[in-house]
């Protein structure tokens, strides 16, 4: 049935990720998934206007020291000062400019500033562990922070989380929304971590690991790490029913 010509929209469409490159929701090694992952099959949602748009959040959400987690208090935090930088890209390598990036992390001893984290490693009064920034016109971001420590948890016997920084990005459309964790190279704790290893594909797992970047290590100051964040890319645009061509 032909819709009237005035009833066509041209919409972008976002590619789905290849099998094995994202973690399955049910992942028995990670105990907390047991009662929280859906057991019914997901229903395919066609990408309509609500799905090919998304919140474009930028500078209005930032405070003065949000991209430097080492200067948010009167004193300096304990630990190894680091610079974490990289680009926010889509799956075709296109930079995503002016886009909000949020991070949160444990302190140098592996303790989060959260009421429910009470393992015996001290809170650092000079470290909150929360940062925000926006990408520049070329999709670049940069944070100055402290290298987070590893910490124990109750998932399995003698379980420890590898050091990581939580990252939250939006991209430019609903399918590009991504919350993930950035890891550090050569962490000896990877082998026993069910969250890191929940991603079946080895190459995909490695995309969560930052690279030591000596070119951004600052003499007498901080170690550099580089990590690009890649959100889903676009397919060819498709014609959709309703309203005007543009």
């Amino acid at each position, binding site marked *: 049935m032909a819709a009237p010509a005035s009833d066509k929209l041209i*919409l972008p469409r976002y590619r789905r990720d290849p099998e094995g490159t*994202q973690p399955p929701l049910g992942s028995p090694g990670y105990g907390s998934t047991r009662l929280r992952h859906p057991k019914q099959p997901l229903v*395919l*949602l066609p990408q309509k206007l609500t799905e090919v748009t998304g919140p474009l959040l930028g500078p209005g959400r930032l405070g003065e020291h949000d991209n430097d987690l080492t200067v948010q208090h009167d004193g300096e935090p304990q630990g190894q000062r680091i610079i974490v930088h990289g680009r926010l890209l889509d799956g075709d390598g296109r930079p995503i400019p002016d886009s909000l990036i949020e991070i949160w992390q444990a302190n140098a001893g592996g303790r989060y500033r959260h009421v429910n984290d009470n393992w015996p490693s001290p809170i650092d009064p000079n470290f909150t562990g929360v940062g925000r920034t926006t990408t520049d016109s070329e999709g670049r971001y940069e944070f100055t922070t402290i290298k987070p420590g590893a910490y124990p948890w109750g998932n399995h016997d003698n379980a420890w989380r590898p050091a*990581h920084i939580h990252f939250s990005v939006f991209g430019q459309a609903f399918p590009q929304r991504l*919350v993930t964790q950035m890891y550090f190279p050569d962490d000896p704790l990877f082998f026993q971590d069910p969250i890191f290893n929940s991603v079946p594909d080895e190459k995909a797992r490695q995309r969560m690991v930052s690279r030591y970047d000596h070119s951004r290590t600052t003499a007498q100051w901080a170690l550099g790490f580089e990590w690009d964040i890649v959100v889903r890319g676009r397919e060819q645009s498709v014609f959709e029913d309703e309203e005007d061509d543009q």
Partner: protein
Amino acid sequence: MTTPSQTVGPFLSIGLPWEDGPTVVPEGTPDAVWIRGTVYDGNGDVVPDALIETWQADPDGRFDHPDDPRGRVPGFRGFGRCPTGKDGTYNVLTQVPGVVQGQAPHIDVSVFARGLLDRVVTRIYFADKADANAADEVLRTVPEDRRHTLIASKTGDGYRFDVRLQGEGETVFFDV
């Protein structure tokens, strides 16, 4: 080459909540409604460490976004974010969206939590739009006996939309 998703973990509440997160529109906005609900796990216990995010069109069915081919309509944030409390509840103040591409009014929802390695995505529809819901092409692809999990019920100050991550009455989640 997408970066894999990882769980938000148990401590997302230090990093993700915003003071104005739950208010998609400012309090006092005409026709604003509170969407309130509770997130439950597979035991029927409340989930006190989840985050709900919402994304929607404005009351005219338009978006403040350059990929809306009908033209960008500035000013409507369209985005809400609320962590669940100790009792597993969240609330978002918004306006009911308009019709988008002939679909019944709907809000896209992402749920993040410890134990979810990736967000899960669902949609809120509105109980008092029964005719539009009956004709909605997405709802019609959902098994009939599960459609009710996507429909928010009317309350005194808006709507109620609970999320059941698993088990009896499990909410319909989408692959987007």
